[in-house]
């Protein structure tokens, strides 16, 4: 598995797209930090970008990498390798390459700004952690969808639809429900509904850390009330981890049974 991972990472780090993606984060963070001159505000802006954009890029990269390496996978399947090493190796390679662009693209401007001497390090680290989670979760989801669909246009469309649903439609539906049933106690429902969406979870992870109740929204407030900051952070992180483990397990299962 490590060999496939290393090779995938090597292939991706040489691709122009990884560098463009890295450059984008670099430019964004530099301009936000130096123009804003307020780390907390920059972290919030970055969070909003990260939650929507990182997941989208992970979905696009994940699907494209799978479909582009479809024939190469056949060559690998002819080698003495376990199937799981091929798929999980490639998946980890893509996720790691995306995470590297993110970590360096955000981290370098932060270091230049002198952020490592301020007390916002925990907030900033939480931002990075949430971004890495987004990468690993959405690449895994995209890889799953790609494995189920031989037709690349179909697979790609489903992946984008999934992203649209989780980042935009889910919150809209959630809000409509909350408004229509506002006469009923909805704390438990909203808690569960939030746990089912990795985008909301990442947002809450950062919000809990920043402790900005005004931006937390209804679910964030309920979350904080229910769990408190410490336990809340732990719960959110654990469920985010589950959002990685379950799709990766399915990747393993489906990868073993699929005909190529």
């Amino acid at each position: 598995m490590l060999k496939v991972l290393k090779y995938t990472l090597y292939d991706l780090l040489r691709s122009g797209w990884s560098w463009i993606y890295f450059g984008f984060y670099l430019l964004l963070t530099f301009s936000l930090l130096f123009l804003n001159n307020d780390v907390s505000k920059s972290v919030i802006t970055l969070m909003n970008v990260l939650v929507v954009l990182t997941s989208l890029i992970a979905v696009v990269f994940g699907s494209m990498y799978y479909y582009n390496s479809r024939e190469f996978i056949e060559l690998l399947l002819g080698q003495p390798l376990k199937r799981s090493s091929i798929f999980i190796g490639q998946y980890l390679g893509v996720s790691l390459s995306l995470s590297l662009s993110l970590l360096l693209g955000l981290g370098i401007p932060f270091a230049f700004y002198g952020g490592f001497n301020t007390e916002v390090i925990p907030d900033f680290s939480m931002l990075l952690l949430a971004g890495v989670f987004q990468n690993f979760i959405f690449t895994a989801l995209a890889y799953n969808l790609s494995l189920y669909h031989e037709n690349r246009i179909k697979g790609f469309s489903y992946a984008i639809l999934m992203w649209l649903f989780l980042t935009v439609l889910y919150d809209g539906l959630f809000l409509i429900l909350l408004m229509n049933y506002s006469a009923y106690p909805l704390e438990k429902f909203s808690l569960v509904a939030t746990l089912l969406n990795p985008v909301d979870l990442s947002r809450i992870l950062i919000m809990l850390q920043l402790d900005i109740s005004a931006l937390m929204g209804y679910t964030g407030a309920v979350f904080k009330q229910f769990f408190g900051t410490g336990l809340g952070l732990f719960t959110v992180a654990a469920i985010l981890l589950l959002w990685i483990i379950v799709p990766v397990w399915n990747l393993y299962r489906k990868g073993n049974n699929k005909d190529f």
Partner: protein
Amino acid sequence: MISFQNISKSFGKLQVLQRVNLNIETPGIYAILGPNGSGKTTLIKSFMGMVHPDAGDIIWQGKSVLKHWQYRENISYLPQIANFPKNVSVGELIQFIKNLRQKPSDETPFVSQFQLAPFLHKKLGNLSGGTKQKVNLLLAFMTDNPVVVLDEPTSGLDPAAMQVLKHILKSEKEKGKTILMTSHVMDFVEEISDEVVYLLEGKIHFCGTVDALKNQTQTQTIEMAIAQLIIKEHA
């Protein structure tokens, strides 16, 4: 040596292989022929563990190969479509496959025969289709394995490269290897193979030497023989 026993496979409603039985006893070059969609690729992919048969078993060296992967250490495989990661060079890909194989392998004779030396440092994304196929062939032949499985080895090759391929196949055969391949190019099959297997709609309609096929159908060339088989089947 390789024994396909009652192999059946369907993709949805499409029955691709129907209780196929095939025994490959002695080393030599075996060509699997048949029209598009007759199940040639599915048959060899079942042996490679890339397609899981619905029923039946495949035995190699006395053991079932189904659901295993270690046996592939001793099998070389050439996929039908040569498409590799775009951002790495030919040399790096060769090193990667060598690293995966963990067996003594030597690419140098094939680099010179296919005249690939100028391309070793080029990125795979910049190569032409024919050059990619040469790299594909090199990857399949560089490791010394007793069984070589080739899916359409001639696709995209120019006449010079075809000659090289024939030469390589002959010398590999002389080393006592078993070569299992699919092909559409009848002249090539006629010249190179010891035995042909004719597959139609998922069933084996003929299995034997090229001469036996010609005798059975009373024809001069393998192409005419195959045509005869198809006509007979639809009569």
